[in-house]
């Protein structure tokens, strides 16, 4: 089996779990540790990507370009990536990220809307960056449809395709089918990004690797939206046991998780009831903490809000609709 390239997103997806409060010194420390452990790519940005700092997604404590700069200052072999959602971030943001030291951009769209990424993927290539086509919420459509959307991103110039189970909804066989369908449709490598809302992040990541994924996302201590992501240090151990080469130093990545990431966590990264409902109802994981806040404000049960968001088919980036749903539920007397 080919070597697996691990992508650490503790400082991007993990940013959701600590409400976008990263500081430059923390970014530098995590980046330094990832470099020493030999992790090939790290991602740093607001959880909703460049330009995500807002009322809707939460304001960042630090300027995200300062975080990129801090991370980039500590790495030599490890590449620094940013996330960009067209409609939130812009090419102007991307240029600033590149100037701050980012050399990879993952351009993320809802799984059925790949064509909105053409402009940004092309711009990334012109800027001399590695460009990744990142399809979110892949549980919402069929493997065949995902393959078509992935092929569009390949045609725009993407260097690899990353599939994200943003709601943590899929079962392992659903992952296998999707990775295989995309592999058959494109010539570029395929990657995988899991959420642990149904406690399947590790099993699903393993299924993705077995189906031919070459890039796998993870975060230290699993820090991420909802119940978090595939726990990176555990993934290194699991892949070691499978004799799959990652080039990552197992002890160093474990130490980094314990010594640097543990102390900055604000809540235990577990499958709490809200996270479980995200996975069960197929709702975008980043909604979780915003749903808890709205439930408290309107005196509602968070699970009712989550189920209604799922029923309405809300997609990534629609955090603003949490208030809409809460308000409408409240009008109806709090019952979904």
């Amino acid at each position, binding site marked *: 089996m080919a070597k697996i390239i691990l992508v650490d997103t503790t400082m991007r997806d993990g940013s959701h779990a600590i409400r976008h409060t990263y500081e430059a010194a923390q970014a530098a420390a995590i980046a330094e540790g990832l470099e020493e452990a030999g992790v090939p790519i790290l991602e740093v940005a607001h959880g909703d990507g460049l330009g995500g700092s807002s009322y*809707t997604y939460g304001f960042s404590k630090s300027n995200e370009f300062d975080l990129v700069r801090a991370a980039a200052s500590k790495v030599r072999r490890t590449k620094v990536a940013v996330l960009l959602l067209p409609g939130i971030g812009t*090419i102007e943001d991307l240029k600033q990220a590149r100037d701050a030291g980012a050399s990879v951009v993952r351009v993320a769209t809802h799984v059925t809307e790949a*064509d909105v990424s053409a402009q940004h993927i092309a711009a990334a290539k012109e800027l001399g960056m590695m460009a990744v086509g990142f399809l979110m919420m892949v549980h919402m459509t069929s493997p065949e449809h995902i393959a078509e959307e992935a092929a569009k991103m390949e045609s725009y110039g993407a260097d690899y395709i990353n599939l994200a189970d943003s709601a943590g909804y899929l079962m392992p066989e659903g992952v296998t089918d999707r990775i295989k369908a995309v592999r058959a449709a494109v010539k570029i490598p395929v990657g995988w990004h899991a959420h642990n809302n149904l406690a399947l992040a590790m099993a699903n990541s393993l299924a993705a690797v077995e189906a031919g994924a070459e890039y796998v996302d993870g975060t230290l201590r699993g820090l991420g939206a909802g119940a978090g992501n595939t726990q990176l240090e555990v993934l290194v151990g699991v892949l070691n046991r499978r004799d799959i080469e990652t080039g990552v130093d197992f002890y160093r990545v474990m130490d980094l998780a314990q010594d640097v990431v543990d102390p900055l966590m604000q809540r235990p990264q577990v499958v709490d009831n809200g996270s479980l409902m995200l996975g069960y109802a197929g709702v975008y994981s980043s909604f979780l903490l915003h749903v808890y806040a709205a439930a408290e404000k309107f005196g509602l049960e968070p699970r009712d809000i989550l189920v209604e968001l799922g029923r309405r*088919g809300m*997609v990534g980036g*629609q955090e603003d609709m949490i208030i809409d749903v809460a308000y409408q539920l409240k009008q109806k007397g709090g019952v979904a």
Partner: protein
Amino acid sequence: MSKIKVGIIGPGNIGTDLMYKVFRSKNLEMGMMAGIVESEGIRRAASLGVPVSTEGVKAIAAQKDIRLAFDATSAAAHVKFNGPALKEAGIISIDLTPAALGPYCVPSVNLAALQMEPDINMVTCGGQATIPIVYAVSRVAGAAYGEIVACISSKSAGPGTRANMDEFTETTAKGIELVGGADKGKAIIVLNPAEPPLMMTNTIMVRVKDSSVGLEAISASIDEIVAELKTYVPGYQLRVPPMLEGDKLTTIVQVQGQGDFLPEYSGNLDIINAAAVAAAEQIAAEMLAMEKGA
């Protein structure tokens, strides 16, 4: 009563919907629908008795009695050809592309100040739906920051929008500042593929400068502008009434289109067209009044 003749450049979905809105207008009538190739839109206009041409802006500029023209093509075409040609012919441009050669126009906010402009720009669909609210807040409580999230159904996001998402976010943000009156603007757009398609929904959040003005005064200002908007977009309504938490004002609006040519869920396309026609009607009313007086 006499009417002012208008031209439409670009016989696609937007141009065709504009034509149906002109048919309903009391001050405007169709002078010509122009494209650059034979198309379904040209054939439809001809079958409805509208003069048509495939000579583009040239044909419209040559019509002596056309006083106003809607440009529903692309930013590049407006900058290179249509804008300059219309200006030379003395025809007022109502520009629906993101070219923005002329000032931004949001009829419920600043049309009165733009009466003499040769070229007015309609910002973006999201801008037409949200800038009036930002303005309604800023005029009574000030606005340090205005943020909007526009959700449109995937089916109503055309290839032009999809190929240039930054144009939407950047232009709308600028409109929030220049027309809405916020010191800083931010715009986010989300496409949702749900079936049946969702109505266009917009969330507006403003950091007010003076929260002591109170929710009641801010709400009254918003209600006033919503009433104004409803005169040209009847399907515009507040989904979530204004809420004030500290200095943060939040409200959510929904835009149901009139279904002239485009489906009702395409409130985004309806509102920019309705705004363009509302602007044209007021400019035409001035023209007619001046002629009557002369």
